[in-house]
């Protein structure tokens, strides 16, 4: 099921159904602190007690994944399976510890936290800052800004500080930014489950609109119905490895059988 393309060349144009993302033998191991807020004080207090302050996380292991243009790939798996890590590696936020990733095209990400850099700044300032940080030019953001605000249905609230936003408003703005900028590759990580029913449907429709032969979409979600509805391919991750990949209905069935059988994986999906 998993194909590793060795033959792809680094040309700078992408053909329809050409390679969008190539993940080759990628492993990701990282060290993180155990404390939520590591301090020097805690470190000094525990000198000589042999207390561990960091732990090593093996998030991804030998992952091979090719995503072609025209594909809508759903990524499923239990919590902690490495889905978000894989999305971060593909979008270049965390470099891999092993292997290689090639991304042929512009990427727009909507990862778990979404837009919103500084809550005391306005929604407008945050959209601009997020866009500029992602490498867009001011003119590009200017030209899309009205469409972003329009899609988000935030109205005048766009000029209010983001700390005054509800979590639903946050999610609306985040989705609007990611879905309006017309990227070649759109990565959405568990962001469709927030917001009210109306906006959920609206964003799902938007995702469907974005499906086209010259675009690749990667969706991470626990909502199996959505995944089956939208995607034309599904990859199932478990403990940092790809367990299966292919036809949505089949892979989802395998996954659901596995979660019922496996003791470790609790049924934590809102299917």
């Amino acid at each position, binding site marked *: 099921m998993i194909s590793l393309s060795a033959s792809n060349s680094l040309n700078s144009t992408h053909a329809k159904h050409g390679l969008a993302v190539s993940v080759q033998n990628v492993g990701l191991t990282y060290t993180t602190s155990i404390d939520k807020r590591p301090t020097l004080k805690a470190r000094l207090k525990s000198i000589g007690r042999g207390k561990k302050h960091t732990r090593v996380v093996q998030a991804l292991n030998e992952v091979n994944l090719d995503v072609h243009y025209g594909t809508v790939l759903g990524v499923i798996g239990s919590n902690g399976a490495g889905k978000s890590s894989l999305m971060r590696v593909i979008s270049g936020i*965390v470099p891999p510890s092993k292997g290689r990733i090639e991304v042929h095209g512009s990427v727009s990400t909507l990862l778990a936290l979404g837009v919103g850099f500084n809550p*005391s700044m306005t929604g407008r300032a945050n959209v601009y800052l997020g866009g500029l940080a992602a490498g867009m030019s001011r003119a590009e953001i200017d030209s899309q800004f009205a469409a972003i605000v329009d899609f988000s249905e935030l109205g005048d609230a766009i000029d209010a500080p983001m700390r005054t936003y509800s979590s639903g408003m946050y999610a609306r703005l985040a989705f609007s930014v990611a879905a309006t900028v017309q990227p070649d590759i759109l990565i959405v990580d568990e962001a469709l489950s927030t917001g009210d029913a109306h906006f959920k449907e609206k964003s799902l429709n938007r995702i469907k609109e974005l499906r086209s032969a010259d675009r690749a979409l990667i969706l991470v979600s626990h909502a199996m119905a959505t995944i089956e509805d939208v995607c034309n391919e599904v990859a199932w991750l478990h403990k940092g490895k790809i367990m299966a990949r292919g036809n949505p209905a089949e892979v989802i069935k395998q996954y659901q059988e596995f979660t019922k059988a496996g003791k470790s994986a609790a049924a934590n999906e809102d299917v």
Partner: protein
Amino acid sequence: MSAPVAIYEPFRAGLPPLGAYLRALWSRRSFIAEFSRSELREQNYGSVFGQLWLILNPLLLSGVYFLLIYIIGGHNDSTRYGHLTASLFLFYLVSNSLSGGVKSITAGQRLILNTAFPRIMLPISALVIALFKFVPTLAVFLVMRSLLGLPFSWQMFWAIPVIAIALLMGLGMAILISCINVYFRDIASFLPYLTRSLLYLSPILYQAADLSPKLKSIEIANPIFYLLDAWSQVMVYAKAPDLFSLAHGFIWAICIFLIGTYFFLSRERDFAVRL
């Protein structure tokens, strides 16, 4: 339709490819400008009174410190007041980059977790903000020194290299401390004590020449001591600075900058998993 190709490969303890990093940084320079502007606006410097405060605040501070040295030491001449004000303003350039830089990475958490960009943009923005706060105080000082009747001369152009060194120092400190704060979050709480000590150990409330030779040789360990002395020579006395002072400041600045940048760049990949 052309599509850029991005390749992500491992880098561990070493540095990321510097050429590509610098190009990515340069292409996002408008972020730094926009971020600094929004941040200043958010701190109310967008309004008339906010901008007035930008000038009033350092003036009030210098007034308070002048009162202090007048009571303690009995110095009340205009040169002394000029020295105090000029030194305090440059000191605030460095200390504002430190206090702005310390939380620049931890406060940028959401952006770091969601977007790939050169993280060093955040502490650089902290320096730019400190510079924006410094410029009006420089103008205030130039007006003030004419009122105080301090001499003018061409030697005052030495202010340019002194400011350049101070900026490099501020940048290096912002980069270093922002990175340390990711690993030890309580550094931000220690910082006020650090800057306060730096204030008293530097020739601001007193003049470098007042110190005994022994103390002056110990002050070699203070990165900004001789730089502030050079600044005072240039801005208050309109004299060329001691070359030793400039060299001392520059060597400290470049060392802090290089160590800070190396530390930052080699740790940068960690930030997204440490926040």
